[in-house]
């Protein structure tokens, strides 16, 4: 292969396509010659896995006599556990009348009658859906995780906002916390903190802290330097400047940090259940293991409702003018609501009365069964065509090619697209994956991710372009996209499962639904961001709508589209791992299996690490795409 490229570049001037074409031919030739050699097949008993499994056994045996556990980790577990029990006790003591009243009152104070009524309706919906108990458990878990995230995140964020050096140290750590698929750190967490509510709260915290720190830092850093200077020149101490100038001025942005932390915490609810944290996640996992959409859907809806209520409440607080007084009528109504709720505690039963619930399980299951029976031929057709035409050939290509050929291809691709540094990072990730002993499974996961990203991009581009060109379509589409993003990812798995069975295609389908919304948004915003003068000029010059799109809007929105591709990859990767639960196999399944079979712990742990490496590699290969093509981007990032 190298001879082709060398001769192509050293000869006289060749057309632009010659080098890529030559390289492609070279790779094809190398593949044909070396196929089946150096393939690194998967071995469940690889020494790397066994070493980790042994380490786990050791930790298990010394949990109660090693000082690190006795004096540190176990205390964290106990502390978080005690706090969770406290939250749970308070919420149970309030019962449904108390919680409804208090939530309604808080929401009314935060955002007036609309938010108040929304909160009342939302909280009642938990009961009506028949999920009161699980919802309260979830509320307690999210409450603990958010409280602790803020207690840690806000001081760190303020510090990072004041000192550039701290910010530089913290940022890469936050990057890893966010890029790491949530699945990957559950196993190590279970190792250190065991299973149950405390471990679930800690897992949720890991996911929810980054936005708390990032946004707080941003808010503090944004405070106008003139105000700070004025304060210091008047002789204020550093603490006075911090508390009297920085924090009040950063207040509304910091409320956003609270908002984002809550949203992130809610999206972890289901995953936390995998380490036996109580709550709505349990209903979703139960639905999954019984293949009943009817059990899953109400729980998914309850999570969305909870997200919407908490989102509106915190956003309303963020938007409020800090100097505005709360109106007396609002205070009165809120007080009355809270008092009524609290007064009703002894009168009404603490648990939602069963006769005011709607049982949707049976009808939803029936609907799904109907769809299964009637669409089976079509869905199986789609699945089989995709699998045989796209998935299987790509998978056998990647798994039968020698590892060095794949690594070389990744290196060259990353070099071309993102430059030397990114290429070396990508290569290092691939080599680490090979050393970890999960090469074959990584290649299989790479296959599903690639196919899912391609489909996501095609759909995302189509919908994004359509939305940018037709405002009405955009208006209809937006709430649907919002819902698709807030819905816990697991909820998509089930309809997909019902239609396509437990196959890799199911995982791809679910990840496409998960990843399409941000792609659509980025594409739509990118196209809308093209200056109207340019569009007018093109129209005046006689472009047809098609020409306008292909020659003007898409090329000018290129940066946004490339960013969309990058985002699509990261999100798809997160989902394909979750897809391990529904037949995606490979790394995702290794992680899942590592949870449930003690002898596979090592394999699961290593697969989690490999997933992170794969994510970093794909991110590095694509993230440079926009940087190189547009010098403007450098300034913005």
């Amino acid at each position: 292969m190298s001879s082709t490229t060398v001769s192509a570049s050293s000869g006289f001037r060749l057309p632009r396509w010659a080098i890529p074409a030559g390289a492609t031919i070279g790779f094809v030739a190398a593949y044909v010659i070396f196929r089946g050699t150096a393939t690194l097949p998967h071995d469940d008993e690889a020494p790397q896995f066994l070493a980790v499994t042994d380490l786990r056994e050791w930790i298990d045996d010394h949990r109660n006599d090693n000082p690190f556990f006795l004096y540190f980790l176990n205390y964290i577990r106990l502390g978080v556990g005690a706090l969770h029990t406290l939250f749970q006790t308070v919420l149970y003591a309030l019962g449904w009348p108390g919680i409804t009243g208090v939530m309604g009152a808080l929401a009314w104070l935060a955002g007036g009658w609309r938010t108040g009524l929304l909160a009342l309706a939302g909280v009642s919906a938990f009961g009506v859906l028949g999920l009161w108990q699980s919802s309260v458990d979830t509320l307690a878990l999210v409450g603990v995780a958010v409280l602790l995230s803020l207690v840690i995140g806000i001081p760190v964020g303020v510090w990072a906002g004041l000192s550039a050096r701290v910010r530089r140290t913290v940022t890469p750590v936050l990057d890893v916390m966010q890029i790491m698929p949530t699945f990957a750190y559950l196993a190590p967490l279970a190792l250190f903190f065991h299973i149950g509510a405390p471990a679930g709260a800690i897992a949720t915290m890991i996911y929810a802290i980054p936005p708390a720190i990032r946004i707080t830092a941003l808010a503090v850093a944004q405070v106008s330097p003139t105000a700070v200077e004025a304060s210091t020149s008047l002789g204020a101490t550093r603490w006075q400047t911090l508390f009297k100038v920085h924090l009040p001025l950063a207040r509304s942005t910091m409320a956003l940090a609270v908002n984002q932390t809550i949203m992130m915490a809610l999206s972890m609810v289901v995953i936390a259940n995998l380490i036996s944290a109580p709550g709505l996640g349990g209903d979703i996992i139960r639905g999954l293991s019984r293949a009943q959409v009817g059990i899953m859907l109400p729980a998914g809806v309850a999570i969305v409702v909870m997200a919407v209520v908490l989102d509106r409440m915190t956003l309303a607080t963020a938007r409020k003018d800090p100097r505005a007084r709360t109106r007396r009528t609002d205070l009165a109504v809120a007080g009355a609501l809270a008092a009524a709720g609290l007064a009703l505690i002894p009168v009404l039963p603490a648990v939602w009365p069963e006769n005011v619930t709607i049982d949707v399980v049976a009808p939803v299951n029936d609907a799904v069964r109907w769809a299964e029976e009637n669409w089976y031929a079509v869905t199986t057709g789609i699945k089989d065509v995709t699998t045989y035409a796209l998935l299987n050939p790509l998978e056998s290509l990647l798994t039968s090619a020698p590892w060095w050929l794949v690594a070389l291809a990744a290196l060259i691709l990353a070099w071309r697209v993102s430059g030397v540094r990114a290429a070396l990072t990508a290569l290092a990730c691939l080599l680490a994956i090979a050393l970890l002993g999960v090469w074959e499974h990584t290649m299989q996961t790479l296959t599903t991710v690639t196919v899912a990203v391609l489909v996501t991009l095609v759909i995302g581009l189509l919908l994004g372009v359509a939305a940018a060109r037709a405002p009405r379509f955009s208006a209809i589409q937006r709430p649907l996209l919002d819902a698709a993003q807030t819905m816990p990812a697991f909820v998509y798995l089930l309809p997909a499962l019902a239609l396509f069975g437990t196959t890799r295609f199911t995982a791809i389908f679910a990840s496409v639904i998960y990843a399409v919304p941000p792609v659509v948004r980025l594409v739509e915003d990118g196209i809308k961001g093209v200056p109207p003068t340019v569009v007018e000029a093109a129209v005046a010059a006689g472009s047809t709508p098609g020409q306008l799109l292909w020659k003007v809007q898409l090329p000018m929105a290129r940066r946004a589209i490339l960013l969309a591709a990058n985002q699509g990859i990261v999100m798809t990767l997160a989902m394909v791992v979750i897809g391990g639960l529904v037949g995606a196999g490979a790394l995702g399944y290794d992680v899942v299996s590592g949870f449930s079979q003690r002898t596979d712990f090592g394999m699961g742990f290593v697969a989690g690490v490999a997933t992170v490496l794969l994510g970093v590699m794909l991110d590095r290969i694509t993230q440079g795409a926009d940087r190189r093509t547009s010098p403007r981007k450098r300034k913005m990032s």
Partner: protein
Amino acid sequence: MKIRLLAGILVLGLSAVGCGGATVDTSTTSSAPAAGSSASAEPAGTVKIAINPWVGYEASAHVVAYLLRNELGYNVELPEIKEQLSWEGFETGDVDVIIENWGHPDLKEQFIEQKKVAVEAGSTGNKGVIGWYIPKWMADEHPDITDSKNLNKYADLFKTSESGDKGQLLFGDPSYVSNEEALIKNLKLNYKVVVGGSEAALIKSAQQAQAQKKPLLFYFWDPHWLFSQTELIRVNLPPYTEGCDADPKKVACDYPEMDLDKIVSKKFADTGGKAYELVKNFNWTNEDQNAVADDMTNKGMSGEEAAKKWVEANTAKWQAWIPK
């Protein structure tokens, strides 16, 4: 203000534990708040029965839970925890009872013998056996297919989009007891394990395979209500002999018939009082379990409803379990 208050409580909680270092089982799980439906009677305590992911297990768990609630006045929590994690739950206090345990000699060794956090609580009366099954029509058409030696001859029949050029052996939940990979390797079978992910996936595939005459080879177990609805034939692997499954990597024999038993945490055995007695006495037949499981899966009943129905119809049986 609120935060400061909570932090204070947190500190108090921490210092209350003392300075001797904290072990995992010092958590005060038994004092978890009661969420019982009856606010009137003071509950006798809380029992946590792990729910493992198959319906037969749930049937047993719900019947015991129903009796604990309604006859003895306990609160019962039913957390969904997979088999092996449930054992760890004995250590943390997240689990009091595993109501149907399938063998697991290694876990018994670790948690009962070494760590001493769990104890056996006797047989459930159910006999369990895991095996490889095919729909009956296949055995009718190919009589010699039920011998595992002939499976390679028929591997082509079982190919699917997920198994490539090998035959597919459909497996269930990742947490199930499994020798599948070792069996395929050691018996040199041209098959690939494809994981369905759940009991439901196995049931659905089995029903479709019999109804639409599609080939299917799958992992399944008895007792199960499905046997009364769909005709399934077991494939004969080399017969089980004592100790042939001692090394998980070298297994080349069928699964043994197991006497399913109950495991409880040491703490529950010591302090569980009447609840522990009831769990220990619980003992019924495969038919009993299948009846309840069938109601739960196919008659649209919740676990509690199905348990109530069985309890009302079988008073004599369960009254023998109630401690005097």
